[in-house]
């Protein structure tokens, strides 16, 4: 029970640090160009080997945290992250082999799903604007994010060996 609280506290602190990094450092490194989404990376790492219910809750909460940092569209990241977390948890846990290539592909697909939802909300479901945003930002951002997430996942896999906490690896 005590371990559970410590785990939640640790995750909250990690999420806060990642949010601060995403809002300050990342945009300065590559302004106005596709950038990796660190909060989404964190979410992918957390949900990839969890059950779908926990995954959706983690996705929703991290999305909400991300929404609080944005000037508009409250609920956009919560929606996108919940759907992506469900997808990653469902497919990653049951159907895909446990190797970095398939995990990277899964993360890439999850980012595309999340960003297409976000694009449609921002561009009010205008197909032309969505397509333009997709080719301008989404593809490269998805590539950066999925490579980063897959690498971190592999490093954690090697570092911690299998189970670190019941119900999920990390």
């Amino acid at each position, binding site marked *: 029970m005590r371990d559970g609280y410590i785990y939640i506290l640790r995750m909250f602190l990690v999420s806060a640090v990642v949010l601060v990094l995403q809002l*300050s450092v990342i945009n300065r490194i590559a302004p106005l160009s596709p950038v990796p989404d660190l909060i989404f990376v964190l979410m992918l790492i957390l949900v990839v080997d969890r059950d779908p219910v926990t995954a959706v809750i983690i996705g929703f909460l991290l999305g909400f945290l991300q929404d609080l940092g944005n000037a508009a569209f409250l609920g956009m990241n919560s929606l996108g992250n919940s759907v992506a977390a469900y997808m990653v948890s469902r497919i990653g846990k049951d159907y895909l082999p446990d190797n970095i290539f398939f995990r990277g592909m899964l993360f890439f697909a999850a980012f595309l799903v999340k960003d297409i939802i976000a694009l449609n909300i921002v561009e009010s479901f205008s197909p032309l604007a969505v397509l333009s945003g997709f080719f301008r930002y989404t593809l490269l951002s998805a590539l950066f994010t999925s490579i980063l997430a897959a690498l971190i996942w592999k490093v954690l896999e090697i570092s911690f060996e299998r189970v670190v906490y019941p119900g999920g690896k990390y």
Partner: protein
Amino acid sequence: MALFSFLFDKHRDKTVLAIAVILSVLMLNLEEESRVHSARIISSFLLAPVENVQKHFADLDSLRAENDRLREVVAALSYERSRLLHFKKERERMRNLLNFRRDSHYRFLPCEVIAMSSNVYHHSVTVDRGGRDGVLKGMPVVGYRGVVGRVIQVFPSSSRVILINNHSVSVSCRDRRSRVIGVLRWDYGNYFNLDYVSKDEDVAVGDTLVTSGLGKGFPGGFPVGIVFRITDEEERVSRKVRVVSMADLGTVEELFIVMSSDEWDYSRIVREIRETGGEF
């Protein structure tokens, strides 16, 4: 009871997902200003430590170089100021003679960017000045080179500024040379289009655009961008005018909130400079 069991026992994961989706959609339809204001204040406090962290990383050498450069600018401006004061008095006398209305003068509140929006489709920044400093929603924000955006949310010690590189923002502009008026809309990066300019209007490559002051969104006379390409298409009645913004909107750091357009108060400005430790 059977339905509850069906939802939460048999299809628990799908039900939780559906609840998350419904909650998100509800949040998307919320009246943001009123219901989530407190949540946003919390987020602004969360981001406050970023400012302190960034100060630690400030490069001392670059600060010294900037200080030297600014001293040179101050020397040049002091000379320019004395000349302009002379012209100002002369101009005021002339305007009084002609019964023109009095000029407006703006007060600039310096501020630093402490966070940038993580959303690439909605560009906004958070600055370290808020309601306690007298910032109000709607105040224009400028950089060293030109207009940057407008305050859209005010917190006690910080404010959120929407940048002009958003599809929802349009700026009424005037060609500084020919006085032609158009509406500036963002395209991508630092590039904009100047709309509603007909083919017979005089706009040329290299012209500087300044805010027109029409529509009350932005005060007039602030530089916005430079025309770099003009295309005339046969089937269109208007010209396609491409503009690059003066300010690099992706790397905004030090900004100024345009506080008011009250009368020029020389003694107050001197007092403010002395209070902030500056030499005059």
